[in-house]
Protein backbone atom coordinates (compact mmCIF):
# COMPACT_ATOMS: atom_id res chain seq x y z
CA UNK A 1 0.00 0.00 0.00
CA UNK A 2 1.26 3.40 -0.89
CA UNK A 3 -0.16 6.77 -0.09
CA UNK A 4 -1.24 9.34 -2.65
CA UNK A 5 -0.97 12.98 -1.66
CA UNK A 6 -3.26 15.51 -3.32
CA UNK A 7 -3.47 19.28 -2.95
CA UNK A 8 -6.25 21.68 -3.81
CA UNK A 9 -6.66 25.43 -3.46
CA UNK A 10 -9.83 27.43 -3.91
CA UNK A 11 -9.69 31.23 -4.02
CA UNK A 12 -12.36 33.84 -3.33
CA UNK A 13 -13.92 32.30 -0.25
CA UNK A 14 -15.33 34.20 2.71
CA UNK A 15 -12.83 34.41 5.58
CA UNK A 16 -14.31 32.10 8.22
CA UNK A 17 -13.49 32.23 11.91
CA UNK A 18 -13.31 29.11 14.00
CA UNK A 19 -11.34 26.88 16.31
CA UNK A 20 -9.18 24.01 15.10
CA UNK A 21 -11.39 20.97 14.75
CA UNK A 22 -10.93 17.29 14.01
CA UNK A 23 -13.77 14.96 13.05
CA UNK A 24 -13.90 11.36 11.87
CA UNK A 25 -11.50 8.50 12.37
CA UNK A 26 -8.86 7.08 10.04
CA UNK A 27 -10.52 3.66 9.88
CA UNK A 28 -11.39 1.45 6.94
CA UNK A 29 -13.87 3.23 4.64
CA UNK A 30 -13.65 6.32 6.81
CA UNK A 31 -11.48 9.43 7.04
CA UNK A 32 -10.37 12.10 9.49
CA UNK A 33 -10.72 15.76 8.61
CA UNK A 34 -8.91 18.57 10.41
CA UNK A 35 -9.85 22.21 9.89
CA UNK A 36 -7.45 24.94 11.01
CA UNK A 37 -7.53 28.71 10.68
CA UNK A 38 -4.86 29.98 8.27
CA UNK A 39 -4.07 33.39 6.80
CA UNK A 40 -4.37 32.47 3.13
CA UNK A 41 -5.76 35.69 1.71
CA UNK A 42 -9.27 34.28 1.60
CA UNK A 43 -8.24 30.97 0.06
CA UNK A 44 -9.15 27.50 1.23
CA UNK A 45 -6.33 24.97 0.99
CA UNK A 46 -7.02 21.28 1.15
CA UNK A 47 -4.45 18.54 1.54
CA UNK A 48 -5.46 14.93 1.14
CA UNK A 49 -3.45 11.89 2.08
CA UNK A 50 -5.22 8.79 0.86
CA UNK A 51 -4.58 5.05 0.88
CA UNK A 52 -6.60 4.62 -2.31
CA UNK A 53 -4.57 5.55 -5.38
CA UNK A 54 -5.78 6.90 -8.69
CA UNK A 55 -8.89 8.76 -7.58
CA UNK A 56 -7.52 12.30 -8.07
CA UNK A 57 -10.33 13.34 -10.40
CA UNK A 58 -13.01 12.14 -7.99
CA UNK A 59 -11.36 14.02 -5.12
CA UNK A 60 -11.17 17.13 -7.30
CA UNK A 61 -14.92 16.93 -7.98
CA UNK A 62 -15.84 16.31 -4.34
CA UNK A 63 -13.70 19.22 -3.17
CA UNK A 64 -15.07 21.54 -5.84
CA UNK A 65 -18.62 20.70 -4.70
CA UNK A 66 -17.62 21.24 -1.09
CA UNK A 67 -16.22 24.69 -1.83
CA UNK A 68 -19.29 25.61 -3.86
CA UNK A 69 -21.50 24.64 -0.89
CA UNK A 70 -19.60 26.52 1.81
CA UNK A 71 -17.29 29.09 0.12
CA UNK A 72 -15.10 29.23 3.22
CA UNK A 73 -11.79 31.09 3.20
CA UNK A 74 -8.70 31.49 5.34
CA UNK A 75 -8.80 27.89 6.41
CA UNK A 76 -6.62 24.86 5.88
CA UNK A 77 -8.23 21.44 5.63
CA UNK A 78 -6.16 18.30 6.09
CA UNK A 79 -7.59 14.91 5.26
CA UNK A 80 -6.32 11.43 6.12
CA UNK A 81 -8.32 8.90 4.17
CA UNK A 82 -8.63 5.13 4.35
CA UNK A 83 -10.80 4.54 1.30
CA UNK A 84 -13.95 6.52 2.14
CA UNK A 85 -16.57 6.85 -0.61
CA UNK A 86 -17.24 10.32 -2.09
CA UNK A 87 -20.54 10.60 -0.19
CA UNK A 88 -18.83 9.88 3.13
CA UNK A 89 -16.11 12.41 2.30
CA UNK A 90 -18.71 15.10 1.56
CA UNK A 91 -20.58 14.44 4.79
CA UNK A 92 -17.38 14.52 6.85
CA UNK A 93 -16.32 17.79 5.25
CA UNK A 94 -19.72 19.32 6.03
CA UNK A 95 -19.50 18.03 9.62
CA UNK A 96 -15.98 19.43 9.97
CA UNK A 97 -16.95 22.90 8.74
CA UNK A 98 -20.09 23.02 10.92
CA UNK A 99 -18.09 21.99 13.98
CA UNK A 100 -15.33 24.47 13.14
CA UNK A 101 -17.79 27.33 12.86
CA UNK A 102 -19.86 26.26 15.87
CA UNK A 103 -16.87 26.16 18.14
CA UNK A 104 -15.76 29.61 17.01
CA UNK A 105 -18.96 31.29 18.18
Amino acid sequence: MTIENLKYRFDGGKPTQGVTTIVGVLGSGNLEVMVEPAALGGACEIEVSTAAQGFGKTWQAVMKDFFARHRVGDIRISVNDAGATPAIVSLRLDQAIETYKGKGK
Partner: protein
Amino acid sequence: MSRSYYESNARARIAGLLDANSFHEWLPAEARVTSPHLATLEQPAAFDDGVVIGQGSIAGKNIFIAAQEGGFMGGAVGEVHGAKIVGVLERAVRDHPAAVLLLLETGGVRLQEANAGLIAVSEVMRAILSARAAGVPVVVVIGGQYGCFGGMGIAARCASAIIMSEEGRLGLSGPEVIETARGVEEYDARDRALVWRTVGGKHRYLIGECDAIVPDSMEAFQQAIMTCIENGDDWSLEALKQEHQLLNERVKRFGTCKDGRDIWRELGWADPISIAMMDNDEFVKAAQGHRTKNN
Protein backbone atom coordinates in the same frame (compact mmCIF):
# COMPACT_ATOMS: atom_id res chain seq x y z
CA MET B 1 -30.50 11.51 26.95
CA SER B 2 -27.92 8.99 28.06
CA ARG B 3 -25.20 8.56 25.52
CA SER B 4 -23.59 5.25 24.67
CA TYR B 5 -19.92 4.85 25.55
CA TYR B 6 -19.70 1.88 23.17
CA GLU B 7 -20.89 3.88 20.18
CA SER B 8 -18.67 6.90 20.84
CA ASN B 9 -15.20 7.50 19.50
CA ALA B 10 -12.24 8.45 21.71
CA ARG B 11 -12.88 12.20 21.57
CA ALA B 12 -16.61 11.83 22.24
CA ARG B 13 -15.84 9.61 25.24
CA ILE B 14 -13.57 12.25 26.75
CA ALA B 15 -16.21 14.92 26.14
CA GLY B 16 -18.89 12.66 27.63
CA LEU B 17 -17.00 11.72 30.79
CA LEU B 18 -15.23 14.93 31.78
CA ASP B 19 -16.87 18.13 33.07
CA ALA B 20 -18.09 20.30 30.20
CA ASN B 21 -15.31 22.28 28.50
CA SER B 22 -12.74 21.14 31.07
CA PHE B 23 -10.59 19.14 28.66
CA HIS B 24 -7.22 20.50 27.59
CA GLU B 25 -5.49 18.28 25.04
CA TRP B 26 -1.76 17.64 25.05
CA LEU B 27 -0.12 17.05 21.67
CA PRO B 28 -3.39 17.71 19.85
CA ALA B 29 -4.06 16.64 16.27
CA GLU B 30 -2.73 19.91 14.87
CA ALA B 31 0.67 19.17 16.44
CA ARG B 32 0.83 16.29 13.91
CA VAL B 33 2.92 14.01 16.08
CA THR B 34 2.41 11.03 13.84
CA SER B 35 4.00 7.60 13.50
CA PRO B 36 7.33 7.63 11.65
CA HIS B 37 7.02 3.86 11.08
CA LEU B 38 3.73 4.07 9.22
CA ALA B 39 5.21 6.81 7.02
CA THR B 40 8.12 4.49 6.16
CA LEU B 41 5.64 1.76 5.24
CA GLU B 42 3.65 4.31 3.24
CA GLN B 43 0.55 3.69 5.32
CA PRO B 44 -1.82 6.49 6.28
CA ALA B 45 -1.05 7.88 9.74
CA ALA B 46 -3.61 9.50 12.04
CA PHE B 47 -2.84 13.03 13.23
CA ASP B 48 -2.94 11.93 16.88
CA ASP B 49 -1.54 8.40 16.30
CA GLY B 50 -4.80 6.94 17.59
CA VAL B 51 -4.71 8.22 21.15
CA VAL B 52 -6.07 11.44 22.67
CA ILE B 53 -4.35 12.65 25.84
CA GLY B 54 -4.76 15.57 28.21
CA GLN B 55 -6.12 17.00 31.39
CA GLY B 56 -9.61 17.81 32.61
CA SER B 57 -11.92 17.32 35.55
CA ILE B 58 -14.74 15.10 36.78
CA ALA B 59 -16.93 16.73 39.45
CA GLY B 60 -14.15 19.28 39.84
CA LYS B 61 -11.45 16.69 40.52
CA ASN B 62 -8.26 17.07 38.48
CA ILE B 63 -8.01 14.13 36.06
CA PHE B 64 -5.33 13.13 33.56
CA ILE B 65 -6.73 11.07 30.73
CA ALA B 66 -5.73 8.99 27.71
CA ALA B 67 -8.31 7.59 25.30
CA GLN B 68 -7.40 5.08 22.61
CA GLU B 69 -9.22 5.26 19.28
CA GLY B 70 -10.26 1.72 18.35
CA GLY B 71 -11.27 2.85 14.88
CA PHE B 72 -7.66 3.60 13.93
CA MET B 73 -5.77 0.32 13.41
CA GLY B 74 -7.84 -1.35 16.14
CA GLY B 75 -6.36 0.96 18.76
CA ALA B 76 -3.01 -0.72 18.30
CA VAL B 77 -0.09 0.69 20.26
CA GLY B 78 2.74 2.14 18.17
CA GLU B 79 5.81 3.98 19.38
CA VAL B 80 4.27 7.47 19.43
CA HIS B 81 0.90 6.20 20.69
CA GLY B 82 2.60 4.41 23.60
CA ALA B 83 4.87 7.35 24.38
CA LYS B 84 1.82 9.62 24.67
CA ILE B 85 0.21 7.34 27.27
CA VAL B 86 3.53 7.02 29.14
CA GLY B 87 3.84 10.81 29.11
CA VAL B 88 0.45 11.19 30.80
CA LEU B 89 1.42 8.71 33.52
CA GLU B 90 4.86 10.23 34.10
CA ARG B 91 3.36 13.68 34.33
CA ALA B 92 0.95 12.28 36.93
CA VAL B 93 3.94 11.16 39.01
CA ARG B 94 5.13 14.78 38.96
CA ASP B 95 1.82 16.64 39.29
CA HIS B 96 -0.33 14.26 41.42
CA PRO B 97 -3.78 14.58 39.84
CA ALA B 98 -6.72 12.90 41.62
CA ALA B 99 -6.44 10.02 39.15
CA VAL B 100 -5.28 8.93 35.73
CA LEU B 101 -8.06 7.60 33.55
CA LEU B 102 -7.14 5.18 30.76
CA LEU B 103 -9.96 4.59 28.26
CA LEU B 104 -8.53 1.49 26.64
CA GLU B 105 -9.69 0.10 23.33
CA THR B 106 -6.94 -1.88 21.67
CA GLY B 107 -5.80 -5.11 20.10
CA GLY B 108 -2.38 -4.60 21.71
CA VAL B 109 0.91 -3.99 19.92
CA ARG B 110 0.81 -2.37 16.48
CA LEU B 111 2.56 -5.14 14.57
CA GLN B 112 3.73 -2.74 11.83
CA GLU B 113 5.94 -1.12 14.47
CA ALA B 114 7.31 -4.44 15.75
CA ASN B 115 9.80 -4.00 18.58
CA ALA B 116 9.10 -0.28 18.99
CA GLY B 117 5.47 -1.16 19.69
CA LEU B 118 6.38 -3.99 22.07
CA ILE B 119 8.70 -1.71 24.02
CA ALA B 120 5.99 0.97 24.08
CA VAL B 121 3.50 -1.43 25.71
CA SER B 122 6.00 -2.53 28.36
CA GLU B 123 6.79 1.12 29.07
CA VAL B 124 3.08 1.76 29.60
CA MET B 125 2.98 -1.07 32.16
CA ARG B 126 5.98 0.33 34.01
CA ALA B 127 4.52 3.85 33.94
CA ILE B 128 1.19 2.62 35.38
CA LEU B 129 3.05 1.07 38.29
CA SER B 130 5.14 4.25 38.75
CA ALA B 131 1.99 6.37 38.97
CA ARG B 132 0.45 4.01 41.51
CA ALA B 133 3.68 4.00 43.51
CA ALA B 134 3.50 7.80 43.58
CA GLY B 135 0.01 7.53 45.08
CA VAL B 136 -2.00 8.34 41.96
CA PRO B 137 -4.82 5.86 41.27
CA VAL B 138 -4.92 4.61 37.68
CA VAL B 139 -8.44 3.68 36.58
CA VAL B 140 -9.00 1.69 33.40
CA VAL B 141 -12.28 1.83 31.47
CA ILE B 142 -13.15 -0.87 28.93
CA GLY B 143 -16.43 -0.61 27.06
CA GLY B 144 -15.67 -0.21 23.37
CA GLN B 145 -16.20 -2.33 20.31
CA TYR B 146 -12.64 -3.62 20.04
CA GLY B 147 -12.12 -4.64 23.67
CA CYS B 148 -8.73 -4.57 25.36
CA PHE B 149 -6.30 -7.27 24.30
CA GLY B 150 -2.67 -8.24 23.91
CA GLY B 151 -0.05 -6.56 26.05
CA MET B 152 -2.55 -3.83 26.90
CA GLY B 153 -4.70 -6.52 28.56
CA ILE B 154 -1.78 -7.04 30.93
CA ALA B 155 -1.31 -3.28 31.30
CA ALA B 156 -4.99 -2.96 32.26
CA ARG B 157 -4.52 -5.49 35.03
CA CYS B 158 -1.59 -3.42 36.37
CA ALA B 159 -4.00 -0.57 37.13
CA SER B 160 -5.69 0.25 40.43
CA ALA B 161 -9.16 -0.61 39.16
CA ILE B 162 -10.95 -1.70 36.00
CA ILE B 163 -14.46 -0.64 35.06
CA MET B 164 -16.24 -2.55 32.29
CA SER B 165 -19.61 -2.75 30.65
CA GLU B 166 -21.14 -6.03 29.55
CA GLU B 167 -20.10 -5.18 25.99
CA GLY B 168 -16.48 -4.68 27.00
CA ARG B 169 -13.96 -7.46 26.52
CA LEU B 170 -10.67 -8.01 28.29
CA GLY B 171 -8.10 -10.66 27.50
CA LEU B 172 -4.60 -11.51 26.37
CA SER B 173 -4.92 -13.30 23.02
CA GLY B 174 -8.05 -12.13 21.23
CA PRO B 175 -10.61 -14.64 19.94
CA GLU B 176 -9.32 -14.61 16.34
CA VAL B 177 -5.77 -15.09 17.53
CA ILE B 178 -6.72 -18.14 19.60
CA GLU B 179 -8.69 -19.64 16.74
CA THR B 180 -5.80 -19.10 14.32
CA ALA B 181 -3.26 -20.62 16.68
CA ARG B 182 -5.28 -23.51 18.13
CA GLY B 183 -7.96 -24.28 15.59
CA VAL B 184 -11.69 -23.70 15.38
CA GLU B 185 -12.40 -26.86 17.39
CA GLU B 186 -10.60 -25.28 20.32
CA TYR B 187 -12.20 -21.85 19.99
CA ASP B 188 -14.70 -20.55 17.48
CA ALA B 189 -14.12 -16.79 17.30
CA ARG B 190 -17.44 -16.30 15.47
CA ASP B 191 -19.40 -17.83 18.36
CA ARG B 192 -20.23 -14.54 20.07
CA ALA B 193 -21.83 -16.16 23.11
CA LEU B 194 -18.65 -18.19 23.66
CA VAL B 195 -16.46 -15.11 23.17
CA TRP B 196 -18.45 -13.08 25.70
CA ARG B 197 -18.51 -15.79 28.34
CA THR B 198 -14.73 -16.08 27.98
CA VAL B 199 -13.63 -12.43 27.85
CA GLY B 200 -16.80 -10.33 28.28
CA GLY B 201 -17.57 -7.86 31.05
CA LYS B 202 -19.87 -10.13 33.06
CA HIS B 203 -17.37 -12.98 33.15
CA ARG B 204 -14.52 -10.66 34.11
CA TYR B 205 -16.67 -9.27 36.90
CA LEU B 206 -17.55 -12.73 38.22
CA ILE B 207 -13.95 -13.95 38.32
CA GLY B 208 -12.86 -10.73 39.99
CA GLU B 209 -10.81 -9.20 37.19
CA CYS B 210 -12.87 -6.07 36.89
CA ASP B 211 -13.97 -4.12 39.92
CA ALA B 212 -17.19 -2.64 38.61
CA ILE B 213 -19.61 -3.43 35.81
CA VAL B 214 -21.92 -0.72 34.53
CA PRO B 215 -24.61 -0.23 31.89
CA ASP B 216 -23.40 1.32 28.64
CA SER B 217 -23.93 5.01 29.37
CA MET B 218 -21.56 7.90 30.02
CA GLU B 219 -23.31 8.68 33.33
CA ALA B 220 -22.90 5.14 34.62
CA PHE B 221 -19.20 5.08 33.71
CA GLN B 222 -18.73 8.52 35.25
CA GLN B 223 -20.30 7.42 38.52
CA ALA B 224 -18.21 4.26 38.67
CA ILE B 225 -15.06 6.29 37.99
CA MET B 226 -15.89 8.59 40.93
CA THR B 227 -16.43 5.59 43.20
CA CYS B 228 -13.11 4.04 42.14
CA ILE B 229 -11.28 7.30 42.84
CA GLU B 230 -12.96 7.62 46.25
CA ASN B 231 -12.09 4.01 47.12
CA GLY B 232 -8.44 4.89 46.57
CA ASP B 233 -5.71 2.45 45.70
CA ASP B 234 -4.61 -0.27 48.09
CA TRP B 235 -1.49 -2.06 47.04
CA SER B 236 -0.06 -2.71 50.43
CA LEU B 237 1.87 -5.96 50.87
CA GLU B 238 -1.21 -7.34 52.59
CA ALA B 239 -3.45 -6.53 49.61
CA LEU B 240 -0.97 -8.11 47.18
CA LYS B 241 -0.74 -11.27 49.26
CA GLN B 242 -4.51 -11.48 49.26
CA GLU B 243 -4.59 -11.08 45.49
CA HIS B 244 -2.07 -13.90 45.10
CA GLN B 245 -4.10 -16.10 47.37
CA LEU B 246 -7.19 -15.43 45.25
CA LEU B 247 -5.28 -16.36 42.11
CA ASN B 248 -4.04 -19.59 43.72
CA GLU B 249 -7.55 -20.50 44.77
CA ARG B 250 -8.81 -19.72 41.29
CA VAL B 251 -6.47 -22.22 39.67
CA LYS B 252 -7.46 -24.90 42.19
CA ARG B 253 -11.15 -24.18 41.96
CA PHE B 254 -11.60 -23.65 38.22
CA GLY B 255 -8.57 -25.43 36.76
CA THR B 256 -10.62 -28.23 35.21
CA CYS B 257 -13.44 -26.01 33.89
CA LYS B 258 -13.89 -26.10 30.11
CA ASP B 259 -16.22 -23.14 29.71
CA GLY B 260 -17.21 -19.90 31.40
CA ARG B 261 -20.50 -21.55 32.30
CA ASP B 262 -18.69 -24.27 34.31
CA ILE B 263 -17.01 -21.53 36.32
CA TRP B 264 -20.29 -19.74 36.95
CA ARG B 265 -21.88 -22.99 38.12
CA GLU B 266 -18.93 -23.53 40.46
CA LEU B 267 -19.52 -19.99 41.77
CA GLY B 268 -22.97 -21.08 42.85
CA TRP B 269 -25.14 -19.92 39.94
CA ALA B 270 -27.96 -22.46 39.67
CA ASP B 271 -28.86 -21.32 36.14
CA PRO B 272 -25.69 -19.96 34.50
CA ILE B 273 -27.35 -19.63 31.10
CA SER B 274 -29.63 -16.91 32.50
CA ILE B 275 -26.65 -14.64 33.20
CA ALA B 276 -26.30 -13.51 29.60
CA MET B 277 -29.90 -12.27 29.54
CA MET B 278 -29.81 -10.22 32.75
CA ASP B 279 -29.69 -6.45 32.60
CA ASN B 280 -26.89 -4.79 34.51
CA ASP B 281 -28.66 -3.98 37.80
CA GLU B 282 -30.24 -7.40 37.99
CA PHE B 283 -26.89 -9.03 37.28
CA VAL B 284 -24.92 -7.03 39.86
CA LYS B 285 -27.52 -7.84 42.50
CA ALA B 286 -27.57 -11.53 41.65
CA ALA B 287 -23.76 -11.63 41.60
CA GLN B 288 -23.51 -10.80 45.30
CA GLY B 289 -21.85 -13.78 46.91
CA HIS B 290 -21.40 -15.44 43.52
CA ARG B 291 -18.10 -13.99 42.38
CA THR B 292 -14.53 -14.68 43.48
CA LYS B 293 -14.33 -11.30 45.22
CA ASN B 294 -16.70 -9.78 47.70
CA ASN B 295 -18.72 -6.85 46.46
